[in-house]
């Protein structure tokens, strides 16, 4: 079975992973998140500088963790988009260089397909059809998946403005909590009352697109509440109530997508899928609805190299055509298939 090297640099994480036949052999991850804290968000140039320093060391560490040799690699998969342009360029150039030097095919893949594929490494092959909720700092999408390597991917809905993770960062900031907002809100919300404040569930009216999201307005609603509040701010209650609104919004739409498309498996992936309240609510609602919920462990939910190796492994085993050596970075490419160029069958 072919050994696939996966490379990921679309945001602030430099990842490398090695997968063979659906099995993760080893991976390595470096993050520049600490360097972005004082800016309150990811600065592309800061991220790119860190990627350049970390790229080769991460590949070497992944190779050592996997107990293989680089010369054993049979194919290279790399995120060609979407992401921060200057960051994507580094992983893509590295992927091309490894493929050229090793004389093996290169697969330029879509970052979000990697998020969906990573669950294969922990929970085995995906069912024939499933709904995937991809929820992270950069993306919030509901997708209808068939054979991930071969079939076109159907976008049921996306966020029209901020991604869910972005809303966590912004709300954290207006509560005086540090960046990144996801983990800190998750922690502080445990001490608060999720029913204390009723924040809106955007895009849930009868005339709204059923699977689209909007988190910008929710963030503004929290900001207005905080500005109007007199006295000591009940930070834990605001955090818990905001988190509850996001969780309710995500769960309601994801379950509805499964029901409307007669799918019995929901895949929840992306960095925000690591949030404990969202996971708990989704499990509860899936159980009620008779839907099997698949969520990778938090380590694999956030950006990493293993997920790109995982989607590369699916493509190689399905016999997908390699990408052209002149492939370029596509920072805002829409997800149509696992290959960045779209479905190939």
């Amino acid at each position, binding site marked *: 079975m072919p050994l696939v090297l996966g490379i990921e640099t679309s945001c602030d994480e430099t990842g490398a992973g090695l997968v063979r036949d659906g099995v993760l052999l080893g991976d390595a991850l470096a993050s520049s998140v600490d360097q972005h804290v*004082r*800016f*309150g*968000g990811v*600065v592309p*140039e*800061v991220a*790119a*500088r860190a*990627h*350049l*320093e970390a*790229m*080769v060391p991460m*590949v*070497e560490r992944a190779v050592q963790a996997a107990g293989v040799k*680089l010369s054993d690699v049979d194919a290279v998969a790399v995120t060609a988009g979407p992401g921060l*342009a*200057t960051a994507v*360029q*580094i992983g*893509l*150039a*590295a992927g*091309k*260089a*490894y*493929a*050229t*030097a*090793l*004389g093996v095919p290169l697969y330029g893949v879509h970052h979000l397909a990697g998020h969906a594929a990573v669950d294969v490494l922990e929970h085995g092959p995906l069912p024939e059809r499933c709904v995937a909720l991809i929820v992270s700092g950069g993306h919030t999408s509901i997708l209808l998946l068939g054979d991930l390597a071969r079939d076109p991917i159907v976008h049921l809905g996306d966020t029209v403005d901020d991604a869910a993770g972005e809303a966590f960062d912004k709300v954290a*900031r*207006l509560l005086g909590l540090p960046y990144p907002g996801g983990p800190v809100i998750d922690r502080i919300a445990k001490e608060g009352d999720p029913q204390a404040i009723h924040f809106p569930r955007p895009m849930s009216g009868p005339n709204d697109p059923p699977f689209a999201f909007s988190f910008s307005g929710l963030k*503004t609603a929290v*900001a*207005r509440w905080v*500005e*109007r509040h007199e006295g000591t701010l009940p930070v834990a209650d605001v955090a818990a109530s905001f988190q509850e609104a996001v969780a309710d919004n995500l769960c309601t739409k994801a379950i509805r997508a499964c029901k409307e498309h007669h799918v019995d498996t929901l895949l929840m992936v992306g960095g925000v899928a690591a949030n404990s309240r969202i996971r708990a609510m989704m499990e509860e609602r899936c159980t009620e609805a008779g839907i099997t919920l698949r969520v990778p462990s938090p380590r694999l939910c956030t950006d990493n190299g293993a997920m790109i190796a995982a989607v590369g492994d699916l493509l190689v085993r399905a016999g997908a055509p390699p990408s052209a*050596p*002149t*492939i*370029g*970075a596509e920072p805002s490419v829409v997800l149509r298939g696992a290959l960045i160029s779209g479905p190939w069958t």
Partner: protein
Amino acid sequence: MLTLVIDTATPCVTAGLYDTADGKTVASRTVVNPRAHGESLSPFVAECLSEAGAAPRDLKAIVAGVGPGPYTGLRVGLVTAMAMGHALGIPTYGVCTLDGIAYGTRGRLLIATDARRKELYYGVYADGVRVSGPSVGRAADIEPDFEAAAGAGATLYPLPVPVLDDPLYPPVEGHAALALPRISSAAPTEILTPLYLRRPDAVPASERKTVSQ
């Protein structure tokens, strides 16, 4: 001894194969396109190898221009060099791009490349040897202690000296010659660190604005 030479610090994406035994460039590819570094570089390397009838395994060292240069393109070259060096188990050596352009020139020259934002990356050279720089700044602010200027950046803004047509971009021979002592002595591999010469221009988060009217 086949050495791969790469430079992506200027709009000219450059890849070449240099035979250190013969002191000759055996294949090279260039394209002047400030937005094509990521697309072009690895294919250029493959084309050079094919033209020379060589395989990646035949490479003994990689030399890369470490800038100064616009960041995204520059990083493409450096990560390509380091990843190929890693994959092939061969050393990588860095050369200041301006030094490579100045290699073999006579007289006292300003060598300049485009730094964007109305600025130049530059150094002053006496018979090809750097006497000041590399620096970044506006053409009008450069102390004119040179008799002529060269490099593609020298044509962008008025300079008080004649501007030479040649050299314009980093030649494969220049980089190879500058790294030759290291290649010949099989010096330890180097981590290729870009000469950015500027800090990222991000500002720390300030107080947030209110949303209420």
